[in-house]
């Protein structure tokens, strides 16, 4: 705490000190509490996005369906995609990264705890801003078009037959926002402004956390944890952070261009004035394809933690798995135009992007084969996290293989914009990322609660989800190749597409049932689950050396890492054949670690909570509301108010004093086990973290 003396200690601002209640959550800078908030928010959005999907599926369960109006359908598929990507999968990854990254690398928090709180609050307000379109947004028909707004009695505002028209005033230009359809001329309401500016805010949140995670990984690793001793999830977090860092500025620029076109009459994408509508696609996918890996790489990292633990073997080809992840991320920046093979780009470009896309299959294959290698000759326990990890490998493989058929450019000319693509990316994002994330939630649940989730419900969840998932997305391959185009509100009975659409809808409801099972499991296990102890899975990595539930300080004694899978090697030796043999005093070692980690010898200094991340983040949506309504005086006023709030928060942040360590843990150590814990004790001194 030498830093304390150099910082101003007297200002008008005192740092908040509540440790319970609403204020403690609003001002917390604890990476674990931030992770928890990310998780619950993301799950709430998952439910919303899922309900949107179910409504879409009801509409499509019969030919010429009359459940939703066209306007409602378009709004729902736009919000479903936007929600699932930006408000569910990304923040669920962020939740696990936030909670787990410092634990995985033996740190007490991330490098910049207040910045971490800032990215969470920006995300939170961004999500609220985006969804406030349901209340405030308007979605008008193109200028000069008649036929909307109920000019005669039988016409719902969304146009055409359909019982349900709710939410039709929401963004309806697709999550991809293709210009000029999502531009000012063809989507003149405010809904697409909410979409563009909402994504802008949410993107900023991820950009902030990416920097934070990178600095954390580079600077706060425990002693002895070389880069190539990091758990793979920490590695994938690092690689994902690089992807975010390089790709988010691109979408930020593109979204600003759209906003300028829509609000201030610039003509970047206005074809009638010489603008280029394809430019939007280049910018969007130059972000959008790395985005796919932003979604999948964290899940790959989680699976690479779970498979070794439950196979009781080290990860096969650790460095190959890590470098394959880096290669996927690197190549991911060079394949964006494979989303645009139908756009008439030159054959040279098409061939080049096709071949580049194929090369991604190589590192992906390396990962899959190494995961198989990990299971092979292992001693496999099919606990729920393992089931989800295996499910990930199996389902993701299918998504990868259908991906190769898109790389065959002429094949893609048939497949693009059909349900075959919908099937493909759901196998990657749902079969891949979501299975992986659920695996992670089951695996690390004890860190949150000190309990394990119910195995029986977990298995019901898994099998229902596997069945529902395949029934939903499997037939979509077939539907797409039979000519069912995407984003279609209706299809004609003559197309013969109805039978499989019925199956798909049933599958979607089975998925919903499986999610319900998960929720029941989560909330009952939180209170009544079996207690986990320190090491419920006989795990390998050092996050399991921190007690369950995690104490605020993570590690009373930061571990000194001597090898990959450090924790495992504290417990196990190898015999002459190379088989694992539990050390005779293995149980004692575990007990000692737990005791030691629960009872700090000296006070541990943790970062102080702060009001300012919350208030800084609060300023952003106010400013952006102001941008949408800037033509009105109150809109201009709102920009000013938001700006003042944000700037005041920045100033407050800068001059905020460090105060007395708010969390002091005085432990009593009886000293009994000191000699038995060889390396861990040497770490002795606690290092303070300050933002």
């Amino acid at each position, binding site marked *: 705490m030498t830093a304390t003396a150099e910082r101003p200690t007297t200002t008008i601002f005192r740092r908040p000190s509540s440790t319970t209640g609403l204020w403690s959550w609003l001002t917390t800078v604890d990476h674990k509490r931030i992770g928890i908030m990310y998780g619950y928010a993301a799950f709430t959005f998952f439910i919303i996005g899922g309900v949107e999907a179910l409504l879409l599926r009801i509409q499509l369960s019969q030919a010429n369906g009359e459940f939703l109006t066209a306007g409602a359908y*378009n709004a729902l598929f736009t919000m479903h995609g936007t929600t699932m990507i930006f408000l569910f999968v990304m923040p669920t990854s962020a939740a696990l990264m936030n909670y787990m990254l410092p634990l995985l690398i033996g740190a007490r928090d991330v490098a910049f705890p207040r910045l971490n709180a800032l990215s969470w609050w920006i995300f939170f307000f961004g999500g609220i801003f985006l969804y406030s379109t349901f209340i405030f947004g308007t979605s008008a028909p193109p200028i000069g078009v008649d036929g909307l707004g109920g000019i005669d009695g039988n016409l719902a505002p969304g146009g055409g037959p359909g019982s349900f028209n709710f939410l039709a005033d929401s963004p309806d230009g697709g999550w991809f926002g293709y210009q*000029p359809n999502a531009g000012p001329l063809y989507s003149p309401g405010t809904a697409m402004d909410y979409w563009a500016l909402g994504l802008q805010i949410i993107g900023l949140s991820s950009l902030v956390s990416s920097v934070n995670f990178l600095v954390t990984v580079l600077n706060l690793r425990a002693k002895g944890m070389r880069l190539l001793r990091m758990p793979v999830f920490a590695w994938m977090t690092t690689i994902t952070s690089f992807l975010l860092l390089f790709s988010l500025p691109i979408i930020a620029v593109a979204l600003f261009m759209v906003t300028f076109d829509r609000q201030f009459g610039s003509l970047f994408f206005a074809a009638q004035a010489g603008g280029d509508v394809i430019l939007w696609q280049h910018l969007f996918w130059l972000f959008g394809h790395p985005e796919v890996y932003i979604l999948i790489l964290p899940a790959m990292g989680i699976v690479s933690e779970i498979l070794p633990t439950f196979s009781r073997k080290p990860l096969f080809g650790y460095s190959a798995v890590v470098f394959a992840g880096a290669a996927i991320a690197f190549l991911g920046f060079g394949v964006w135009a494979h989303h645009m093979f139908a756009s008439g780009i030159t054959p040279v470009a098409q061939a080049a992007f096709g071949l580049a896309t194929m090369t991604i299959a190589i590192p992906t294959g390396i990962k899959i084969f190494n995961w198989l290698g990990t299971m092979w000759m292992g001693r496999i326990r099919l606990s729920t996290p393992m089931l989800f990890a295996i499910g990930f490998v199996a389902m993701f493989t299918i998504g990868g293989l259908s991906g190769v058929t898109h790389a065959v450019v002429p094949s893609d000319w048939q497949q693009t914009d059909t349900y075959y693509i919908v099937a493909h990316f759901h196998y990657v994002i749902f079969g891949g990322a979501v299975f992986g994330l659920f695996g992670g939630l089951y695996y690390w649940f004890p860190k949150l609660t000190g309990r394990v989730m119910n195995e029986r419900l977990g298995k019901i969840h898994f099998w229902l989800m596997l069945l529902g998932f395949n029934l939903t997305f499997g037939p979509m391959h077939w539907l797409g*190749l039979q000519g069912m185009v995407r984003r279609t509100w209706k299809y004609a009975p003559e197309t013969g597409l109805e039978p499989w659409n019925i199956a798909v809808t049933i599958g979607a409801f089975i998925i919903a049932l499986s999610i319900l099972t998960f929720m029941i499991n989560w909330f009952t296990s939180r209170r009544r689950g079996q207690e986990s102890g320190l090491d419920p899975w006989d795990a390998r990595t050092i996050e399991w050396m921190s007690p369950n539930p995690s104490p605020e300080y993570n590690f009373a004694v930061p571990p000194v890492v001597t090898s990959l899978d450090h924790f495992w090697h504290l417990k196990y030796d190898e015999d002459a054949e190379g088989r694992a043999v539990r050390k005779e005093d293995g149980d004692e070692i575990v007990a000692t670690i737990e005791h030691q980690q629960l009872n700090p010898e000296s006070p541990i200094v943790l970062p102080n909570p702060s009001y300012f991340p919350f208030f800084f983040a609060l300023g952003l949506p106010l400013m952006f509301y102001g941008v949408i309504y800037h033509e009105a005086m109150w809109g201009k006023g709102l920009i000013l108010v938001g700006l003042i709030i944000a700037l005041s928060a920045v100033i407050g942040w800068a001059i905020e004093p460090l105060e007395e360590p708010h969390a002091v843990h005085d432990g009593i150590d009886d000293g009994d086990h000191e000699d038995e814990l060889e390396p861990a004790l040497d770490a002795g001194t606690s290092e303070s973290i300050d933002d």
Partner: protein
Amino acid sequence: MARPRHRLIRLGVLLGAVLVLGACSFLGSEDQPLTTFEPAGPFAEQINNLFWPVFWIAVAVFILVQGAILVAVFLFRDRTGAKEAKQLHGSPKLEIAWTVIPALILAGIAVPTTAAVFELTECDPEAIEIQVTGHQWWFEYHYPEAEIDTANIMVIPAGQEVCAVMTSDDVLHNFWIPALNGKRYLIPGQTTLLRLQADEPGTYWGHCAEFCGLSHSLMRARVQAVEPAEYEAWLTEQQTAAAVPEEGAPGFDGYQLFREKGCTQCHTLRFEDEAASNIIDRASFNGPNLTHFASRPVFAGAVLPEEGQTRDDALKDWLADPPYIKPGSFMPDLALTEAEIDALIVWLDTLE
């Protein structure tokens, strides 16, 4: 607690279920007019021939990976008394193998892919040019040599290559006739090309594949391939102008309504009497050219008539409230009475 038999049974049930599902999906491939699996011309054929080998390679990898997972779970599942696992960290030889082998397979796929991209991109200079313009939400076809315009259904000669020269009047559209070729965007302010050829006469279904606004799902297309002689006859017929109905003749009332109700703002009609003609500048907003409306078996974005519906019934529904059938339609609800609608239909049916 070892129950290998139970596991075998479970494995069998699982595999059986997969096979049954797979078999089901191949049933009923008849009567799917948008299928990509029944190519009707050389371009779609070439794509199809490229798809299947890749598909079977994917199936082989699928079986390898899923099989390995099942076998691993079956063989190495933790049993009481099982030995601890050997702590293997990897194998450089295997890493090289599963890097190089997939790379070689992909290189094998890359060669015909690249060749096909180049072969399928450039139109044959001899090909018949048809200009396709996308509108919200219908396709317009202009035959530059014959100087005729039509909509929703494109007529082409069988056995000859057609070069679709495409652009859009408003947003992005994506022209797709699965039996004839893959998709190509229609881009405002730009021109794209698509090769089309049907070997045999027939009607081929299509759809706009890019999301293009409220009624994207109702922007459909047809291509009708006819014998070359029939094609020439069709061109000649389409070049003729319509006759203005005489007073008292069938269609006279409908024609008057067409004039009075504002239909002339959007719809071109060429009459023998040029003074009576209503020509809409193609560069500005327009609706389908109606000169030969009755010669087109489908209308309203190739959505109508629906299966089992007569053309006149479909027209009745359409004229009564176009935006109800096609939400967001630029053709407004003109609040026509039933008598007016009937009169219009009588006249429209004369526009052969």
